[in-house]
């Protein structure tokens, strides 16, 4: 047996389980797995203190590939399971890996309530805008009009913006990134990892089989600089190949303006503020949709608020301080009693 008392420096390999990875070759999930496996050893947390909880879907196979504790649970319920685990064991680092169907179709309720409660969970949503595992039905993030197996004539549902929904539910940390931009993905995951509270990351992920190229505009060299807006805290909203476009407010609506030529100055642009307590700005950004507006990537919001698990622990402490540690015999004898001799 190993001597378990000595802490070991961990590497990516330590987080790779012995299970064959069973995603389709070329699936965007691989790179996300790799980034997470790279990130964890850097967090200073013993490996045994990680738990990965997922639902059902291609994305939800994630825990099997992580050499950590984990549950591949049932469809949509991972946030609820993770909440119970985290409340029971606040010292664990609990991650939820989910898909657009798992989190936003069947799991929508648990998703919004996790955001609301601010349980200290890291929620990574692999958004391929399709149901992968069931072989290609449209999902709540599929584009309007999309033709899929279950909408051969085009879908008539308007998609959710997962970021908007999370903000509407009161999320304290919300970010978006893409599978193929590894450095960005890594940095956003790292930010989520250190956030105290529910940290929600939407990863735009390519399903090569059923929805190939769904995020191409954002990932292809030719188009991406005009199609995406890289959020930086404290910086004005500037984008474009030559960083020559910006976002200005017209009333409360966004307006794309050309920069340079001295016509408009950067000072007129909206400045990003991750830490704004009022989530109006974050939501404003979350409504940007291509092609009219560039799609923001990065951290929309990151504010520190007491987490559900902290508050729960605090409530226990405070009550014990006030009442003393409960004693079973006293409890059983509580209320009115009488004695028969």
């Amino acid at each position, binding site marked *: 047996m190993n001597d378990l008392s000595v802490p070991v420096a961990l590497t990516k390999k330590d987080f790779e389980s012995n299970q064959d990875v069973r995603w389709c070759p070329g699936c965007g999930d691989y790179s996300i797995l790799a980034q997470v496996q790279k990130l964890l050893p850097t967090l200073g947390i013993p490996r045994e*203190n990680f738990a990965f909880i997922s639902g059902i879907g291609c994305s939800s196979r994630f825990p099997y590939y992580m050499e*950590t504790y*984990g549950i591949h*649970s049932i469809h949509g319920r991972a946030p*609820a399971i993770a*909440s119970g*685990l985290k*409340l029971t*064991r606040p010292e664990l680092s609990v991650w939820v890996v989910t898909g657009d169907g798992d989190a936003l179709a069947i799991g929508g309720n648990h998703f919004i309530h996790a955001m609301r409660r601010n349980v200290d969970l890291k929620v990574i949503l692999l958004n391929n805008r399709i149901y992968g595992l069931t072989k290609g039905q449209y999902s709540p993030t599929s584009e309007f009009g999309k033709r899929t197996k279950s909408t051969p004539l085009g879908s008539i549902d308007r998609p959710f913006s997962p970021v908007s929904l999370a903000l509407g539910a009161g999320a304290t940390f919300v970010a978006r990134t893409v599978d193929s931009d590894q450095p960005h993905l890594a940095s956003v995951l790292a930010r989520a990892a250190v956030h105290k509270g529910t940290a929600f990351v939407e990863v735009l992920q390519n399903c090569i089989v059923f929805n190939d190229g769904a995020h191409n505009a954002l990932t292809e060299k030719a188009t991406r600089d005009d199609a995406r807006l890289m959020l930086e805290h404290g910086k004005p909203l500037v984008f474009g190949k030559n960083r020559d476009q910006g976002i200005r407010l017209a009333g409360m609506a966004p307006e794309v303006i050309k920069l340079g030529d001295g016509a408009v100055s950067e000072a007129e642009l909206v400045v990003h503020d991750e830490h704004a307590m009022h989530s109006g700005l974050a939501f404003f950004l979350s409504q940007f949709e291509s092609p009219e507006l560039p799609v923001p990537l990065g951290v929309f919001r990151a504010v520190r608020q007491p987490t559900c698990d902290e508050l729960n622990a605090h409530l226990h402490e405070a*009550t014990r301080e006030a009442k003393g540690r409960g004693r079973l015999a006293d409890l059983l004898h509580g209320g009115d009693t009488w004695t028969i001799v």
Partner: protein
Amino acid sequence: MSELEHVFVNERENKAVRGDAMSGTERLRERVVETLDSVVIRFVGDSGDGMQLTGSEFSRAVAKAGHGFATHPDYPSEIRAPTGTVFGVSGYQIQYGAGQVFTSGDAPDALVAMNPAALRTNISDVKHGGIVIVNVGAFTDASLVKAGYTSNPLEDGSLDGYRIFHIDISALTAAALRDSGLSKKEVARCKNYFALGLMLCLYGRSIEDEIDDIHQKFAKTPQFADANVEALRAGFAYADAAEIFAASYHVREAAAEPGVYRSITGNHAAALGFVAASELSGVGLFLGSYPITPATDILHELSALKHFDVTTFQAEDEIAGICSTIGAAYGGALALTTTSGPGMALKTEALGLAVMLELPLVIVNVQRGGPSTGLPTKIEQSDLLQAVYGRNGECPIPVISARSPSDCFDCALEAFRIAVKYMTPVILLTDGGIANAAEPWRIPDVARLPKLEVRYRTDAEGFQPYARDENLARAWVLPGTRGMEHRVGGLEKDFLSGNISHDPMNHQRMVAVRAAKVARTAQDIPPTRVEGPASGELLVVGWGSTYGTIAQAREIAEADGRSVAHVHLRHLHPLPPDLGEVLARYKTVLVPELNMGQLSKLLREQFLRDVVPLTKVQGKPFKVSEVHDRILELS
């Protein structure tokens, strides 16, 4: 002049002396005292009349005198129905007597009716010749109409056959409190204490204890405390002095087992049982639950116990309730979820997951009238087959049930014992009857409670997540334990490693071993206890809250010389190993259930043995007489 008419006249005459009676202190020592073995009293009134309080205070008083008792509260599903309507009537029935009292009683010996609606909806239950005390002050024309009366029952002779006492409780209370400085509305709220005082006197109890209690209860509002005490005294004094009462009653006392007692409801007892499980095992209790009648009180009780190692999580729905519980179980907690029928339906998918994960979990279903929303505040036992069979796939789960309010404590411990020992979810069935009904409970000595041993595996050497011990239980490993990182999930898994396996024979083996494990829980079931003869004509087999009714019906029949035995099952799945053999010893098997015959189905299937179902789905418990009648027919 018949005896009844005599009473009426007395009463009418008595109206004149009301005012006096109030101040009367001299006791009618010459009044007859009837001695009874037991008595059934029902308090009924408007939801706002405080009948639940009156009833439970009365219970407390008789309990402290050493009586056995059983209660049945019956309140409307409306929160606060418009005053005076029949659907707004709230009732509380108690039976108390010498020694053990099994049920709250078939029919009241005495009814206290605070308004016309209460009288109308309850009068037909009262025993022929029973006492009916009516608050005539509430019998206005308007309230009679509201109650649906077309003529005044106090005057139209429709109450002939009862011993009616017309007492203007409203006015008497007002008179007593005329100097209290309280508003009219506030004064009106005190009339339940008047009624309580009256009944305590009539049934030979003192009011000192109750006065202390009022002062405690209303410590923050002394003016209300004083007023209620005043009303209580006035009621007591009235009964003591009034000539209308020809008799007062003494209910025999019988020495119960020595010990410290308290009155307890099923939900409360369950909550205490779960805390006990936590304290005895040294493992934190986690409750993930979504409110639903009649289960919510367990959540209420436990959510106040943060000075214990008890975490409560009010989830967004029942699915999150059980799922958070699964997460907590994975984390090493004694994990519990509580619900009732419709909520149970929502939990079934996650129950399947719990079976696959082989984690300990307790699911309480406080059954209510179904199907669907059904009769949410009423009693029924119709979720048994759902508990045993209601999941996709071959998905066995042990099912146990509690027979009485205090038995919920023992069953809570038993449920966690099975869950932890066999690493399995366990379903505990109670019902809306015992959940809210109270009975005296001899508080157990903590040191004598059964130990609950929880062992987490910490040795990583040779660890296989799904390797099993001699009970077929896999090991419980806490996340955070170094060297045993592993994944579990809802897909079929390898017999040892727990990794996903689609292997055909492995699936067959896993289905078999899950079934064998649940079957093996039967090894701990003690030999079936038979009340009555060990063989003979008739065996009555029951489960759950019908215990008291069946026990009493059997005792009566046996006293009449009938050969009738009674087995009351705690373990419903698996059934006790010796049950088939027990059944075989009787010519006829009668199975009373508050459903359409669900246990009957299980017995027929398992033992290929015909049984006689006795079923009832009326949102009400069996009457002793209903079971007794059937016993007589069959024995």
